[in-house]
């Protein structure tokens, strides 16, 4: 039994890392622009479908690189045309707009690629287990962790060591002052949105190797992202990362003892966090109060 539990904790970390990748993109956009991007799942699915379409031309690795970039490009267009006018306004409108976009995304993917799940072929050497004992540690899951680590590492590197990153961090704290200092806030927000959507697209490509590729892929994955952000704390990217890992592990453990509750448990965690420490584990006091 201990073995089962340990395996599940380990595995939960892997799944949690994936949730964290999704949630980080969402968190990035939320922190700087104050927009709750309900369409995040839609972008994720789009990334997956684009990868599926590109694989016959550029192979799996090519698709892994290109699909998230294409998704981010679309994200930039949507940000410029639809979302930019909403900044500074009532958060209601951002929610409603992205909500509507989510509907459109799901319908358009069904229109273009069909309602049926599509077979996503991952390179064969990735899909085998690494050892007989730790059979659940497949090449693909290790690959997923590697990509997530690279992406998160890249994100934190950009945020901490580049000028763009510094501006984003400063903007999250006090956008007005940043603007006064001569930074083009519009461009900053756009780039920030683009980075967030890139991460969604990347998560989508990873998801397609693990799950079935269907138009409802986005809708099924968006909720854990929200919970990860609430648990980890608004305003803190590290918190979001932690939140994602935590809910992954919690879900895995619940599957051992209370399988029926393995999805509900993340909402229970969220409830507990809200009761005991409403700002989230690493959230900042007064943040978006």
């Amino acid at each position, binding site marked *: 039994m201990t073995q089962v539990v340990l395996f599940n904790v380990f595995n939960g970390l892997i799944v949690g890392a994936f949730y964290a990748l999704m949630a980080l993109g969402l968190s990035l956009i939320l922190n700087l622009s104050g927009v709750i991007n309900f369409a995040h799942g839609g972008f994720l699915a789009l990334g997956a479908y684009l990868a599926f379409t590109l694989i016959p031309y550029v192979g799996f690795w090519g698709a892994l690189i290109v699909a998230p970039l294409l998704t981010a490009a679309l994200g930039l267009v949507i940000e410029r045309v639809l979302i930019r006018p909403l900044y500074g306004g009532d958060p209601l409108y951002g929610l409603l707009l992205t909500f509507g976009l989510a509907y459109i995304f799901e319908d358009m993917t069904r229109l273009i690629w069909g309602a*049926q799940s599509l077979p996503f072929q991952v390179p064969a050497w990735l899909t085998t287990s690494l050892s007989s004992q730790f059979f659940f540690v497949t090449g693909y899951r290790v690959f997923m962790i590697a990509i997530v680590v690279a992406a998160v590492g890249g994100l934190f590197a950009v945020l901490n060591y580049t000028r763009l990153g510094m501006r984003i961090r400063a903007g999250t704290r006090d956008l007005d002052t940043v603007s006064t200092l001569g930074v083009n806030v519009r461009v900053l927000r756009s780039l920030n949105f683009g980075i967030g959507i890139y991460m969604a697209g990347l998560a989508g490509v990873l998801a397609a190797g693990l799950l*079935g590729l269907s138009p409802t892929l986005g809708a099924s994955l968006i909720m854990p992202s929200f919970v990860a952000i609430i648990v980890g704390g608004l305003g803190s990217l590290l918190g979001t990362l932690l939140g994602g890992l935590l809910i992954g592990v919690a879900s895995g453990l619940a599957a051992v003892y209370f399988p*029926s509750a393995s999805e509900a448990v993340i909402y229970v965690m969220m409830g507990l966090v809200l009761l005991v420490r409403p700002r989230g584990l690493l959230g900042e006091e007064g943040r978006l109060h």
Partner: protein
Amino acid sequence: MTQANSRAGMDRRGIITSGLVLAAAQIASPFVIRARAADAVRIGLDNPLTGTYAANGKHELEGCQLALDEINAKGGILERPAELVVEDSTSGDAGAAVQKARKLIESDKVDFLLGNVNSALALAMAQVSNEKGVLHIVPGGHTDAITGSSCHWNVFRVCNTTQMEANAVAGALIKEYGKKFYYITPDYAFGHTLETGLIKAAGALGGEKVGGDLVPLASVDFSSYLIKAQAANPDVIIFLTQGDDMLNALKQAVQFGLQNKVHLAGAQQEMEPLEGLPSEARIGTWVMEWYWNQPGVPHVADFVEAIKKRTGRVPTARHWFGYVSTWTCAHAANTAKSLKAAEMAKSLQDFHLPPEVALGPNPAFYRAGQNQLIASLFVGDAQAGGSAPDDLFKVTKVVNGADVAGTVEESGCKMIWPTT
């Protein structure tokens, strides 16, 4: 208005107009589903076209459309043209399904109601059709209650009950693989009844449940359950999940290499999830309710060709469900020589489908007193590709539905006919 305002007004109007044009284009698009003729006999299809079950619903629709064209080519229903009125029930919103059912019955005045893929929605719609006295055929909703504890005189079902499927496949599983089963069961009525049915059927042959998990619907990650399953050391891991859940579970199981340690199998399987799996994951022993590759059985090849011409793909069981449902409407009316639901329902008792509709080696008939279609079940193994790239299932045994259906008493159906 100042100049600035009027300029903004122009832009806004322009964009709104283009938005409306876009919307209008959507409405006028090839997907127009409504067209009327005055004296037509109308068949209302209330099935999912969006959401999780969209693919299944789409395939059933295509089967219905083929049947409709054939019916009209043969003179229609009672010498009148037949028409299909299609509504999207959504994949899970019972309110929408019920609303559409009422719309079809009251507003469109359909003579027949068809639907739903989702068992729960089928039950909700059955309440409406029974209340309004309209003949209702359920193509692909599997919960036993539809022709069991919640049966109605006006509701007929084409696909099998979970008990029938379980009975058909249990023998093959025990013979090929052994007696110890671990169940991965989706946590809703269909999953529960399928598991109960399989435990009972396997138990009669010495099978034993060494463990199991009730898995939430739309689970993303099955690894925890697979870890537990492997630790329980069964002969077979039984996957009762369906659709995308089946896909995810099998995909992940094969990634774990579990098929090298334990056998993977289950009960109900369909082409749709098999097609969504990567080729190395198309394995395991299952039972299908209808399969396209039936060499030697007359008329099947014609059906396959007809569907291929329309849709570019081979038919799945869902196509067959839709096809049978629609043809049943025509036969019911033509046999009873009337469109009155009670008379048609009576004419369908023990009604045998003609071979070009039954499309299987065994006779297909609606069992009297239960309104359940008894036909053939196809037990076999999934394969990455057989005689053709879309031959994803190797049939090892065709079971006669009559052998595994149990009795009407066992189903729990007590049919009450209207007095008038």
